[in-house]
């Protein structure tokens, strides 16, 4: 991860000062075919800078989740390219994609998506264990401390509150020291206090641990925690706001009809 990305599509991406953790080049995603085809992403070119917290915003159906899924290697593009670091995802097989997700990407989902049979600690260590490697103890302690789970580690998900479950999910996403963490409406199922706490953890992961976080949300409060906010509508990026405030985001969203 050194130097700038090769200029595969000059002019479309402004050369970022910190290297991009992930970027897309004219990413297009079409669902279905013929008359019923729906364009979810329309030649989107965007870079997610390393060490920064980016929020993707937009009304329902704007393509924000699709964008995230494609960048995260969960879905494939119809046209265009996605790079995670230097790796172009379109060239990877299903297995290579899986291993890439396991080793370099972290996920936080709206519906916490923990494995119910595993304890909190086991859930956190899951990606490392799947890879058959021992979790880095020091790092793990730091992560657990950051999300404040110390005394709940031996509990199963069913014994944890929603906020605690989501903190486990965040810890799991961070545990493998991923190049980038994707969070899909992470506060969607939480009350406002738990949601605020969670956003705090994600913020600290960026500020104190140098992580890169990309978060899809339609909550202006959540977006205001990010370093920058991207606005999507009809599969295109329509705006980008640095250091967004709740008011600015609300203003922008209402103009988009979200």
């Amino acid at each position, binding site marked *: 991860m050194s130097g700038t990305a090769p200029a595969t599509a000059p002019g479309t991406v402004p050369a970022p000062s910190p290297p991009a953790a992930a970027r897309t080049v004219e990413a297009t995603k079409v669902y279905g075919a013929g008359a019923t085809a729906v364009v979810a992403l329309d030649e989107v070119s965007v870079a997610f800078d390393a060490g920064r917290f980016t929020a993707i915003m937009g009304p329902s159906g704007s393509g924000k989740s699709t964008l995230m899924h494609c960048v995260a290697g969960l879905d494939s593009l119809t046209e265009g390219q996605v790079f995670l670091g230097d790796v172009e995802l379109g060239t990877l097989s299903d*297995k290579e994609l*899986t291993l890439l*997700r396991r080793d370099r990407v972290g996920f936080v989902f709206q519906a916490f998506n923990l494995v119910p*049979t595993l304890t909190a600690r086991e859930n956190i260590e899951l990606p490392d264990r*799947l890879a058959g490697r021992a979790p880095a103890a020091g790092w793990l302690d730091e992560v657990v401390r950051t999300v404040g789970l110390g005394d709940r580690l031996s509990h199963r998900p069913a014994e944890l509150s929603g906020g605690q479950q989501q903190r486990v999910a965040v810890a*799991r996403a961070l545990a493998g020291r991923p190049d980038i963490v994707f969070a899909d409406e992470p506060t969607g199922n939480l009350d406002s206090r738990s949601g605020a706490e969670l956003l705090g953890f994600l913020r600290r992961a960026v500020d104190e641990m140098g992580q890169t976080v990309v978060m899809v949300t339609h909550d202006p409060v959540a977006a205001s925690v990010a370093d920058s906010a991207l606005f999507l509508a009809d599969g295109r990026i329509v705006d980008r706001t640095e250091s967004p405030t709740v008011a600015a985001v609300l203003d922008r969203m209402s103009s988009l009809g979200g």
Partner: protein
Amino acid sequence: MLSLTLREMRAHARRLAGTSLAVVLGVAFLTGTLVLGATLRSNFDDLITEANASTDVVVRGATDLGLNQPRGLVDRSLVDTVAAIDGVAVAEPVVSGFGQLIGSDGEAVGGNGPPQIAGSWTTDPELNPYRLAEGRAPEGDGEVVVNRRAASEGGLDIGDTTTLLTPEPVEVTIVGLATFGDQDGLGGVTFTALALDDAMTHIAKSDDAVSSIAVRADDDVAQDDLADRIGAVLPAGVEATTGAAVADEAVDDIASTFLDMLTTFLTVFAGIALLVATFSIHNTFSIIVAQRTRQAALLRALGAVRGQVVRAVATEALLVGVLASLAGLAAGVGVAGLLKGLFDAAGFALPAGGIVVTAGTAVTGLLVGVLVTLAASLVPAVRASRVAPLAAIREVAAERTSPGRARVAAGVLLAGAGAALTVVAALGDGDMLALVGVGAVLTVVGAVVLGPVAARPAAQLLGAPAARLRGMTGVLARQNALRNPRRTAGTAAALMVGVAVVSLFTVFASSVKASLERTIERSFGGDLVVSAGPFGGGISPELAAEVGDLPEVDLAVGIGQGAAQVEGDTKQLSIADPADLERVLDVDVSDGSLADLSGPGAPGQPGPAAMAVSDETAESNGWEVGDVVPVTFADGRTEDLAIGATYETDDVVGGYLVPRDVWAPHSVQDVDALVIVDAADGVATADARQAVTAVAERFGGPDVEDREEFAATMTTGVDMMLGIVYVLLALAILIALMGIANTLSLAIHERTRELGLLRAVGQTRRQVRAMVRGESLVIATFGAASGIGLGLFLGWALVQAVGTATGGLGVFALPVGPLAIVLAAGAVAGVLAGLRPARRAARLDVLAAIATE
């Protein structure tokens, strides 16, 4: 409600198909068995009735000793008496008895169950059930006609010369081939026909007596009338029976010796398959219903009463049951054909003929299938109706996963009481088989009830190697098997029952073998045994005499089998020279002396002839040494036999031992089943064997074996039986495995989102497959291991109980090797059962899986 049920069924057609398959297979097996039984009976009935259609009356000895026991002879001069009676068109003397044909390879033809018959060729074509298909009728000088199947099995053809053992070897030349009706034989019966005089000499061993007289009536005379007319002139001890009655007897004989046994045997295994199917269905319904708990709660919230919820599930079960039973019925007819083919391939010759499906068969199959499905769905249906309406609104997992206290208590109570009863009954005195059965059922029920309690620690233990070897994938597999102990146990229960039966048979068979081996080891004093094979057959008593005369041999004792009526019941007898027998076979005489039995009365003193009985026979009849018992033989004569000795060990000679010189005068063909040979001092067994084999060659070459070989021969029958049992149990195991596959599929459906998550965070498809297979492996191993444990325990109890009840089994053998194979096979089968669900799980689309609610 009905339309909702139907829509539900359509939506979950795939899951229901998995359930139905268990019912289909079970019903197919049951129907197949019933159809096969009816078909065979009808085929045999048609064949025999048709072949004997023109025989109106049979004149024969009146004393009936039952199955396959020859009757006494009748005077040949009666033929003229009968022929002179008004209404008799033809009266022809018939000789029929034992005759073993030797094939071109020097081996006996047939002899694996069906009788080997030799007799006279009936010259009147209408009286003869056999028809000459090729060649000509025998005219004397050892000319014979052989039924076609026997000829082809023995590699014989017209013009060939071979040996017929009657049981003395007779050189015969085949001059014709016959069919029974239009079939190549009457099942697997071998039939060799000589000319009448030859047959009288060699088989009836008499120049003035025959086995029976076959009579054909004039056209306008009824069978009953003619039988009455003939009966009026017959001497005492001879009867005239209508041809129709004789044909019915023949059909009944086949039914009771073979068909009923076969049908009962198969029905037992169909029952086991259905039992296993019931567990499978119950489990599937439990899962389906649990998955729909929220829907049931919603219905309740919207105002459905409990009964409606129960009825909805019951209706679904009913429809599944009816559809699956109908499919099973249709498949069963196919299975019958398949079974018939299987038995044909195994060497049972069954008559050809159409498949017979009776209304009774159809109703039974349908009823059993529907009832089994309904019964299996009852508990889940009631459970579904008990769900609180609030569960629809609350986000709760409604399926109870952990065992309740009541279950633990009930299970411990049932299993404990069952096991205790089984142990006490097994070790108790007398015939406790029924009690052991009750104990066994209680134990099995208790084990099933306790399954969920045992599932957690068992899965922990069995999953440990997987967790250690496969890392996280193994841990997940184990955790998945652990997450719902009720379900794991329910799934494993089907396999447990199947494997328990397999283990029970394995243990029992190996104990039978070990007991046989021990008997031979302990009681056989001889060095060599000449035997006609595991199914018996006939050896001429002359063989024992000639072998006894060899310089290499000290003593040769023949043991024959016979039957007689004792106090009105037919009893099996062993025939031997008791004084000689004692020197080569240890029967543990408990009172009196075998040496005193030979000859009428004690040496030099006139008095009644004597026999020996086993302690058990003596005890159950209240006899002791010195008592005199009247015994009626096949020729109708009764002799008072004094009990001269009692003995303890009856596994070779059975309940009655009768001296040969008492038996021989009443028997037409005196036959040895085996000859025990003691080599002379200083003669190597190998040398004695060579000499004995040379003699045996002249008597059709029965097997000459040392004790180990003899033991092996005696146990081959056990192994063969066990083989057939394994094949029949395979279906039950298959149903159980399908249950595992079905449960896993349902579980995967349930865990779609979780699987999606695992894939999202980096579980490879290969790891997903390994995880699902691992879960399957844990469940299957749990089922197989508990089944083996259960089977081992019940097998031990059965061996003990049978041993006490009959004195037949003394040894409990633990077949470690075979049981290890069963366990390994269970594990492998578990992995196989997991293959398809594993593939489906690995194929899940990650995004779609995550999005699933």
